């Protein structure tokens, strides 16, 4: 997967401050992107206890399907809706297979199954969309806006905006809706949830479907900003993991906030240290957080009462 385009003149601006500002602004968009993937992890993990190693498949599939829809001149809102629906169905399938092997003890079988699913879907995406990185036109305008001399693409604002909307929706769903509370009950105590009449297996499928739909929208909105290809899922999943762990795996808001902070730091690392070090920076931070504050940096800031309720 390509990095978001930086404006060609950004590097030659000369002023270190200008360059840093450019990196920070690009970093926020990158971070929102990874925050969206992290959100998908959080939804599934909170409900099923499964860490879905095929999480990168949802945005990849979502982005690639949008490329085809754009080529078929489907209106954008309709295309987004269909995209989310199709990928949600795929997600439900993933959930069914992963749940089949997950008895709540060893986390290994669902890890292997989801790794297998991501491989199989890489193959399928390769078959349908071939090997080349693809993209489609931005939602609104392709020309950069300038903020204090730093280039900002309108599509980056879409990414940030949609990340904010989706995280609020997810938070609202888990906190304020009856269904959301039922879903969350499964994560707190599966047996008790079953005793009060909640269909735990159905809720797991619902979580996978929701997570996949979120992923599809994420893929759809980031693809015009970068490019997407059959094997984009690995980069997306790894950075999404890092964001979710860094921010807090049990809290949607914390995960997205984690994504944005990591996005800024890793874009700076990429710009000032070198190619490939964005991932290294993100993963080193993830390791530090895992070892020193495993609940995540922002877990207690956005108190979602997820576990306390």
């Amino acid at each position: 997967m390509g990095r978001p385009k930086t404006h060609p003149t950004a590097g030659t601006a000369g002023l270190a401050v200008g360059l840093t500002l450019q990196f920070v602004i690009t970093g926020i968009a990158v971070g929102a992107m990874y925050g969206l993937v992290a959100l998908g992890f959080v939804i599934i993990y909170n409900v099923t206890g499964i860490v879905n190693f095929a999480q990168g498949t949802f945005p990849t599939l979502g982005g690639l399907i949008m490329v085809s829809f754009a080529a078929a001149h489907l209106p954008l809102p309709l295309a987004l809706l269909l995209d989310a629906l199709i990928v949600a169905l795929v997600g439900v399938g993933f959930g069914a297979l992963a749940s089949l092997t997950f008895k709540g003890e060893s986390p290994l079988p669902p890890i292997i199954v989801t790794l297998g699913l991501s491989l199989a879907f890489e193959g399928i995406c390769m078959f349908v969309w071939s090997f080349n990185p693809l993209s489609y036109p931005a939602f609104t305008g392709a020309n950069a806006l300038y903020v204090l001399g730093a280039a900002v693409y309108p599509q980056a604002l879409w990414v940030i905006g949609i990340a904010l909307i989706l995280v609020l929706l997810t938070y609202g769903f888990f906190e304020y809706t009856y269904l959301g509370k039922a879903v969350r009950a499964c994560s707190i105590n599966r047996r008790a949830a079953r005793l009060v009449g909640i269909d735990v297996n159905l809720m797991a499928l619902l979580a996978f479907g929701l997570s996949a739909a979120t992923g599809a929208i994420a893929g759809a909105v980031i693809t015009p900003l970068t490019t997407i290809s059959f094997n984009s899922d690995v980069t997306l999943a790894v950075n999404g993991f890092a964001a979710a762990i860094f921010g807090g795996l049990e809290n949607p808001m914390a995960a997205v906030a984690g994504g944005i902070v990591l996005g800024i730091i890793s874009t700076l690392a990429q710009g000032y240290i070198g190619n490939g070090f964005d991932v290294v920076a993100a993963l080193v931070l993830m390791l530090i957080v895992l070892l020193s504050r495993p609940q995540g940096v922002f877990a207690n800031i956005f108190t979602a009462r997820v576990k306390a309720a």
Partner: protein
Amino acid sequence: MKRRPALVWLLPLLVVAAILPRVVPGSFALTLLVFISLYSMVTLGLQLVLGYAGQISIGQGAFMGIGAYGYAILAVKQHVPAWPALIAAALINVAIAYIIGKPILRLSGHQLALATLAFGIIVATILAQATGLTGGAIGISAIPNLAVGGFAFNDDMRNAYLAEGFAIASLLLAHNMMRSRIGRALQALNASPPAAESLGVDVAGHKLHIFAFSALLASLAGSLYAAYLTYISPDAFSIFLSVEILVMASVGGMATVWGAPIGAAAIFLLHDALDNISKGLPSGTVSILQTVIFGAVLIAIMIFVPEGLTRGVIKGVEGLRSSTPL
């Protein structure tokens, strides 16, 4: 506990190992044999970490990469003789395993899986980016073969024997280790860490030692890999290597050292079979078919034989044996 003399299975194993390189068809099959042997060693290390100590690691490929690059850098750039280079690479690996293992092994479950995954990706990125040391994407070539006196392991046949020798020695060592005090402590640890700890088992210490041992096996396999191919590049040690090793361990089955060679052989033969099936198809189709089938096989094994092929077969055999009157 039944004690079977080691010779019962050791003798047939040695006979098969001695004959196999002579009867397999062509140099490609020999290469396959070398790879199966080397990957058995790496997988074996993971088996011990996973099946006995109950710890998930998705970073074993990094140890293999450090073993390969350590050997190559020392032998090619520092002109260290081959065997000392192999040993030095192994020592470096063991030291790294102790240093990162100490904090990381406090984690468990998916947290440990993610931490080791992160370690694997960080090492892979450094191998690809530290151009001055590793040659970057170009890699390192003209790596010397191993040799004993004037006898150089410089063809497929000799390397097949060398790799088999190392793999069998590793299996024997692991097999005996698991029947020793350490092995019983590890099994207790896998069954219930608190129970093991309350009985006086040094849980943290045992996990750390077994992690370091797995790094040692992966390092040796990596060095042998570099010495056999005489050329290495970073894409051989990407995170996919770690995933593939995890897959071999799961397919072979946990908590039995025999799962390692069986898992490694099953995966390499599957790759080979897919290559043969897809002969004549356009090259793009081949990789598509391979990826999809490989993924599907993983899912199927986890659903139908979650304990792995080895356990499945052993169960089947024992079922047959117990049903026949003695």
